[in-house]
């Protein structure tokens, strides 16, 4: 079981759910499951999205494993200067 916390930008799709517990061993699977639960979210969580797993921010995370008990956030990918 992992915990996914949603940012306010996704509220139009996630509604009242600020955070949910879900079973997902990889980011790819997680996004698929989330898209089933909140249709349209899969497209929103696209190339320009980074994933934070237990505080570590990963820009190219689609194939990453998610350890059991992890906390997951979706963030806009940052560009530096």
């Amino acid at each position, binding site marked *: 079981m992992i915990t996914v916390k949603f940012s306010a*930008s996704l509220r139009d799709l996630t509604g009242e759910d600020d955070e949910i517990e879900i079973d997902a061993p990889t980011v790819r699977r997680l996004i698929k499951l989330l898209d089933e639960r909140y249709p349209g979210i899969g497209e929103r969580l696209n190339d320009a999205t980074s994933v934070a797993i237990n*505080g*570590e*921010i990963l820009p190219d995370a689609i194939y990453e494993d998610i350890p059991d008990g992890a906390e997951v956030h979706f*963030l*806009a990918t*940052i560009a*530096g*200067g």
Partner: protein
Amino acid sequence: MTMTEDPKNAPSYKWVGSRSIRPDGLDKVTGKARFGADLKLPNMLEGAVTRSPHAHARIVSIDTSAAEAMPGVHAVITAADLPDLAEAGAKTDDVFMSAKVLARDKVLWEGHPVAAVAATSREQARAAADAIDVVYETLPHVLTVDEALADGAPVLHDTMITKGADPVPEHASNAASRALHERGELDKGFADADLVLEREYTTKPVHQGYIEPHACVADAGQDGRAELFVSSQGHFSMRAMTATTLGWEPSQLNVTPAEIGGGFGGKTTIYLEPLAVRLSTKAGRPVRLVMDRGEVFKATGPTSGSRMKIKMGVTNDGQITAAEVWMAFEAGAFPGSPVGAAAMTAIACYDIPNFVVEGFDVVCNKPKVAAYRAPGAPIIAYGIESIIDELAKGIEMDPIDLRLKNAAVEGTQASYGPQFPRIGFVETLEAIRDSEHYKSPVPEGCGRGMASGFWFNIGGNSTATVHINEDGNVNVITGSPDIGGSRASMALFAAEEFGIDVDRVSANIADTQTIGFNDVTGGSRVTLATGSVVIDCCRAIKEDLRRRAAKTWDCEVDDVEWVDGQAQHASGTETPLSLADLAAKAPRTGGPISVTKSNNVRGAGAGFTTQLVDVEVDDELGVCRVVRYTTAQDAGKAIHPSYVEGQMQGGVVQGIGWAFNEEYIHRPDGTLDNPSFLDYRIPVASDLPMIETIVVEVPNPNHPYGVRGVGEAGIVPPMAAIANAIDDAVDCRLVDLPMSPVRLLDAINQRGE
């Protein structure tokens, strides 16, 4: 000075942390280093660009015939010479990028390129570019977020529906997107506060101000390939963007990075490159294309102007209970301001339980903004760090103490989502609080202010090769353009890993054909990410050297150690073998000694900074001078202390310019009034004192040497620190940037009215 966490247990290094001479230094002090405009090829033509004189207009027609007939002209191009990416179904971002490089149907800002020419001399190219007859139908324009968001404002892109808006808008507008971060209950938070302040701030577009204008040389062959010599912050991404714009595959282009004369984020994108390549293919000759300073100001990417509304509440004992932030950033002609990052950094330094942070990306008829050192963060920090200072004054609490009380620490849930790992914000606050500057009395007639800042820092994709020459000297080859001294750090890593003198290491930057992929030099990533990959190469080579020594001694690899630059037999019975010894006999032990490693490096650590400034205000002229400045920044581990200090000082001084004088001044007709260094006033040596640096070292647990990026955070606090100091000096709270003499004098004169 350096303040290391736990100095007794900190590892001690022989080379890392020393002040070696940078490998590219000799060429730079003798004038030999080649920057983008310094390459001269046989048969080379010179280019010039025709640019829109209007802020917003439809292109009715372009007649190039006069230009084509002029003496010395070998090629003229317009958007007709580039693929129509919209028609090809390309991504919107790519369509916009191509339109930015060469306008297709509309010009969206004064300076927008419309055509380009290659001729046998610069004067001929300029004359021909000026002779291109463009017929425009001018359109009404908008210059600021206020104008762009006003009811009935002319819309730049008629399919632009605000992304992230709730509910989804029915009509197109100039608001490209909306970012939102929320937590807790705002009303309850403000109700819990004893003091609530509400302020509105504005900032103007400012330019990165690199001294070297954009420049490149393109040399196309008859085989559908081209060479590009260009100063950029990332030749691989430049290659990809140029190829997309040309309708080419990236591998058709080989990009060689020139030395780069400053970037700060502004050279992470393309302007001239596709034009130069296309002119070269059309002319069948190399083409050099260089911007003049006016073009740099008018037609490259400054950072956003903005409007910000901030409301914040604090209890009498210093707990910040709520923050409400609304901001709109100018993106320029196409979407993509750093408002998203600003929304993430806005209150990231603090643990605030109730907040709403909302940011809008707004297009307007100005050049498309580009990244500028911690993009977005300095702008919002001006507001946040100013209002926190006012709150501190309001509850009579020391501003450092107020920040300490609310500071984000390891485990704090960041305002943008995830928990912070080990970070050094508190340490930078303490470093300033304990500094000699802070403990000294404020000089007579001066005011003192402080502010803090944060930047994420990133890792990313890097490739490096390390090989050992037959004489035992080491080559380190990377693909990260060196904008701040990173080659010196790469050499220090190799010296430390091998245990050899840093003078025996050369560090070079290869082109897109001779090294594997590398992300841009930006995001404060190179020392961390490219450094990591260099370290990986060195460690792999050391394993190989142990194996070769074992073969030489006919013993087990486990009996061989690598110590102080030599292979040593654990029993001490063999004469040690140096790098030179092993390299000389390399053919006998497996061939040349060389390793290439690549990685998408993770584990970048956030960087925090706290800064302190004393200013003196002449209240008859409105002129404000920085009298003393101290900056404390967490570098994790300073690999080359001089260049870490250099990054800190450079960021601070850009912030000082941003605070006092720098701004884009547009005339009502949308043209830029100050496209020169005379009227766009950046700091000069006589404006400034020495910038005292305190390098704080709270090691990044995810890097072998504890490195955190340092290039960017330094520019985040200065404007607010100075605003706070001005308030302390003359009791005037300035909420508009720049805090120029005219504005400061107005504020002083209106004081107490």
